[in-house]
């Protein structure tokens, strides 16, 4: 097991301080989140959990640098986030996140070379190793339209990991998959994490997925999103025991509690 956590000495990798996010629709300005604060430490599997409309995806996009907070600050390794960049790779929910005009291998290689994270030769090497890791070696020269939804998400994960970002941002990456595939992908993600212990920030609206994937779970309330709690998840070896269902019930009660 990991050493006991010492908040005083450890420096957060990603810190979100009092972030309020707003976006404009044609008639109104919507506040997506209000004064959200949390810290993510290296090798965390940090889950943002909440019902739809709690601004969790918007929050992730802000961390990705796609929109800037109206209040508060987001900083990665002590530096303020100002725009999108390859140090925070996104894995989206949509299947069309792969470039359709590039093969699986080219998709990963292009990400590495276009962002200047690796030279051509290095990128080829890394692409092959990560594509093998997600079990798609056979499909390395296929175009995305020949792959199933689950395979496309695997490629997106391989691409994200190959970039070796400071933090991998995953925006409900398994939400559009069927239940069986989703379950398989969750296990695969955990297996990949065991390998390299990358830091991941994962957005979901499924309590079960949050407990399964996360080490730490941030609960957000809807309209606008505010932090309700930050909980520790159940370790993998205690999955399926009473602890898991107890946590599930606890989160359920917190999310649907009447005010």
């Amino acid at each position, binding site marked *: 097991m990991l050493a006991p956590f010492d908040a005083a000495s450890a420096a957060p990798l990603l810190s979100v301080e009092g972030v309020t996010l707003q976006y404009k629709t044609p008639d109104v300005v919507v506040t997506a989140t209000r004064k959200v604060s949390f810290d993510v430490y290296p090798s965390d599997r940090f889950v943002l959990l909440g019902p739809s409309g709690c601004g969790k995806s918007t929050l992730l996009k802000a961390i*990705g640098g*796609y929109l800037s907070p109206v209040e508060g600050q987001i900083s990665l390794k002590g530096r303020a986030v100002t*725009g*999108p*960049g*390859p140090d*925070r*790779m*996104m894995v*989206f929910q*949509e299947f*069309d*996140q792969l*470039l*359709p*005009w590039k093969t699986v291998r080219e998709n990963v290689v*292009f*990400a590495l070379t*276009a*962002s*200047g994270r690796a030279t051509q030769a290095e990128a080829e090497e890394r692409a092959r190793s990560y594509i093998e890791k997600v079990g798609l070696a056979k499909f390395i020269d296929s*175009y*995305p*339209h*020949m792959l199933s939804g689950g395979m496309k998400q695997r490629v997106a994960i391989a691409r994200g990991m190959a970039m070796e970002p400071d933090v991998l941002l995953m925006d409900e990456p398994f939400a559009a998959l069927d239940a069986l595939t989703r379950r398989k992908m969750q296990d695969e993600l955990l297996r990949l994490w065991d390998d390299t212990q990358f830091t991941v920030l994962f957005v979901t609206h499924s309590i079960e997925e949050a407990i399964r994937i996360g080490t730490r779970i941030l609960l957000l309330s809807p309209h606008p999103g505010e932090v309700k709690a930050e909980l520790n998840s159940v370790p993998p070896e205690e999955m399926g025991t009473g602890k898991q269902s107890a946590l599930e019930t606890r989160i359920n009660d917190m999310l649907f509690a009447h005010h």
Partner: protein
Amino acid sequence: MTDLVSFRPEILREVHSSDAPVVAKSIGLAERIYRLGFVRKAFILAVLALAWELYGRWLGNPLLFPTFGQTVEAFVGNIVNGVIPQRMLVSLQTLVIGYGIGIGLAALLTTLAIGSRIGADLLETLTSMFNPLPAIALLPLALIWFGLGTGSIIFVLVHSVLWAIALNTHAGFRSVSNTLRMVGQNYGLRGLKLVRLILIPAAFPAILTGLKVGWAFAWRTLIAAELVFGVSSGSGGLGWFIFENRNQLETANVFAGLFTVILIGLFVENIIFATIERKTIRRWGMQH
């Protein structure tokens, strides 16, 4: 109720996929031939040629309507004596210049249009103003500005190409999914690099449609414009060839000229553009 449940035993079976009957069966020869696009098209062309030949013979008036055989004869004769190839060269040269300038201007306009709001408004306004305007209607003006000759033809060509390509490319850029844009930005791509590496390939189906429509417009406009003023320079194009022969009542030659126009059209559409399509958007699964 409980009785029904207990009476129905559960069924468990071993699945042997290895001794399953053949799943895929090859298709018969006749159907395989029918599936080849060029075979079907060649058949249609043969039927059309036959109908043409029969009607020409039945009419028996080569001055009004020469038969397919006479047309082919005139076509071959004019190729052998070098008239058609030379006229074709003149036409294609003018076309390539006009098409090229049109593409360049369209690229400039769409770059402005995706770069800023006012650029987009400019493109939309210009397109809605000039797209419906037939290129031929600009001929009289072009004549005043550029005189008789290639300059005027290129001017109307550019006009006919520009709006179709700009309109399609701009629509293509706007329909690129937000996710793909965000992916590009995630790689740290900005500005022209984002356009070149993400937006252009992502919008390629629409851009290719624009290029095809632009080409068809250009070809049509070119022949029409040459009919009117391929006159001045001693070396006219195909349009002028058609016009000249009509004046001399060499109807078979007129047909041969039209035949050449059609053949070039078929070649560009079915060989050049079809090859580009097969190697790009079909291979990428962006079009089926």
